[in-house]
């Protein structure tokens, strides 16, 4: 201790000269204040500019699409080209069907992979997993589309909702894995130990303790992945193609009427080409009929509302749950 003290006093001998030559705190006061003000207003202005596009888009889409939204728009299928009226029920159904398929495909392996990545981050497989998901999340969605086309459309011979769902699942997977992994890592280690100390095996601990503790964050990640997948267009061009005569309701009815089993009906629906909201938007916007262009604005509005609401719900969900703890 005495040693350290003497060391201190030796080094402190240098400080006075420093003070005399380099420190001019008082003189620079005004200049510092001006620069500070300047920088602050600049960052404020630029931040404002960063959020302007969002509100601009939302406002414009609401303005253009809002006037064409009505009940028929949600419950009717398209009329023939050039005829006024009709709706986009087919693409709403298609979007719902494909998101459900993609969720069913992506969630179980996504959550398992996330557990592996969180528990064994330094094993070769763990490292590969994290690197792989990072790369996968950067793969252009059109590439995923053509991949699924080659694997699930070409051999079968026709486009289908199933192929579209698989493409969306691949796009959702990285989001689900990474957010779930982060959420699992946030679960206190001692909670896991508490279960293991009772003699519980690792799998039971993961399922009964860690998963419930992390479930809010996992659901949030899942919702965000869902919102992203539901808004994808490019991969669906190669897989679901689009089908403006698609009517799930009619298929179920006629199937039941014809005495088909539930599985047969579901199989029929899944093997059809389907439309989705972004696909419809893309196709309608290119058409020369004013009615279709207007409807594409309305579709844009529905899509934007969907993404907005999922984000807001996810946020509220997390806040209400974390607030309670």
């Amino acid at each position, binding site marked *: *201790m005495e040693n350290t003290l003497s060391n201190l006093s030796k080094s402190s001998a240098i400080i006075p000269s420093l003070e005399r030559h380099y420190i001019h705190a008082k003189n620079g006061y005004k200049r510092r204040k001006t620069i500070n003000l300047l920088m602050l207003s600049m960052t404020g202005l630029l931040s404002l500019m960063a959020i302007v596009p969002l509100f601009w888009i939302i406002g414009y889409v609401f303005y253009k699409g809002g006037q064409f939204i009505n009940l028929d728009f949600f419950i009717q299928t398209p009329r023939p080209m050039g005829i006024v009226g009709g709706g986009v029920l087919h693409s709403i159904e298609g979007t719902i069907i494909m998101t459900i398929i993609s969720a069913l495909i992506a969630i179980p392996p996504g959550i398992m992979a996330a557990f592996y990545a969180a528990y064994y981050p330094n094993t070769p497989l763990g490292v590969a997993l994290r690197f792989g998901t990072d790369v996968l999340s950067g793969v252009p969605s059109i590439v995923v589309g053509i991949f699924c086309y080659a694997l699930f459309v070409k051999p079968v011979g026709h486009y289908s909702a199933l192929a579209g769902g698989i493409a969306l699942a691949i796009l959702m997977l990285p989001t689900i894995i990474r957010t779930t992994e982060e959420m699992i890592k946030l679960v206190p280690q*001692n909670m896991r*130990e508490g279960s*293991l*100390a*009772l*003699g519980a095996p690792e799998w*039971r601990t993961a399922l009964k303790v860690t998963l*419930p503790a992390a479930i809010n964050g996992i659901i949030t990640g899942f919702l965000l992945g869902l919102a992203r997948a539901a808004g994808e267009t490019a991969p669906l061009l190669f897989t679901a193609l689009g089908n403006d005569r698609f009517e799930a309701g009619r298929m179920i009815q006629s199937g039941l009427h014809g005495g088909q089993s539930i599985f047969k009906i579901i199989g029929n629906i899944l093997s059809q080409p389907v439309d989705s909201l972004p696909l419809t938007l893309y196709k309608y916007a290119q058409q020369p009929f004013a009615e279709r262009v207007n409807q594409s604005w309305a579709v844009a509005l529905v899509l934007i509302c969907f993404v907005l609401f999922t984000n807001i719900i996810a946020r509220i969900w997390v806040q209400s749950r974390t607030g309670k703890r």
Partner: protein
Amino acid sequence: MEISIETRENTSVKYPSLVSLPVLPISNKGLLDGFEIKMEILNLSVFYNKFRALNEISVKIPTNRITAIIGPSGCGKSTLLRSLNRMNDLTPKIHIEGEIKLDAKNIYGKGVDIVDVRRRVGMVFQRPNPFPMSIFENVAYGPRLYGISNRMLLDEIVETSLVKAALWDEVKDKLNQSGMTISGGQQQRLCIARALAVEPEIILMDEPASALDPVATIKIEELMQTLKTNYTIVIVTHNMQQAARVSDFTAFMMINQERAGTLVEFGATPQIFTNPKNRQTEDYVTGRFG
């Protein structure tokens, strides 16, 4: 390096550095004569990678008594405690030498079921760690693990465990509420109830009150006194007053020259705190360091 300490008379007394002192084995022959021994730790060494964290520790844990492990931070108290129910197995690259005998059977021996060890040797952690489920399910978690699914039997186990943990009266009307909504002290007693529900023989406590306020701490300490009639308790604590208040026997640990945790002295608690045989123990319990 030397440590100088100002005494009341304002004269500086110099103590040689504590880590350079050789650790003297203190013979305590006859100390545990007449006591039933629940657990016997024999020449236990624990290595992280090649670093020796615990150095040949031998202690006997008497049945139905509270044994406290005290010592400065980083001396291996928790490592020792976590060896007793094989929680150390979770640590990567760990290597254990020596034996820990539970009722004369080595828990690190061949063919030992780790699940059985952990059922018989329960553990309570430093921070209350209730599971994200209801109070009832928290306590029923262990019994369910061992295949009990009869609702009436579970009800009974949950109630008796909560009664034993002195928590029943406070939570009997809100058993379905989340275990995370009750206070910290109640959470810790819930964790004790959870440990009791699988009918352990030994309860390990790793600084069970360090995250609690004084009132909750007293409750935990009183609880330990009632529990010791049926269970053997080993407690790790930073708080020497707590060790002096609750325990029957005390083990004092410190790091030796190679920074490995070493048992310095083991004895009856009053003797350790009033008449320690070892100089380092005396320095520690009188507050000269630590």
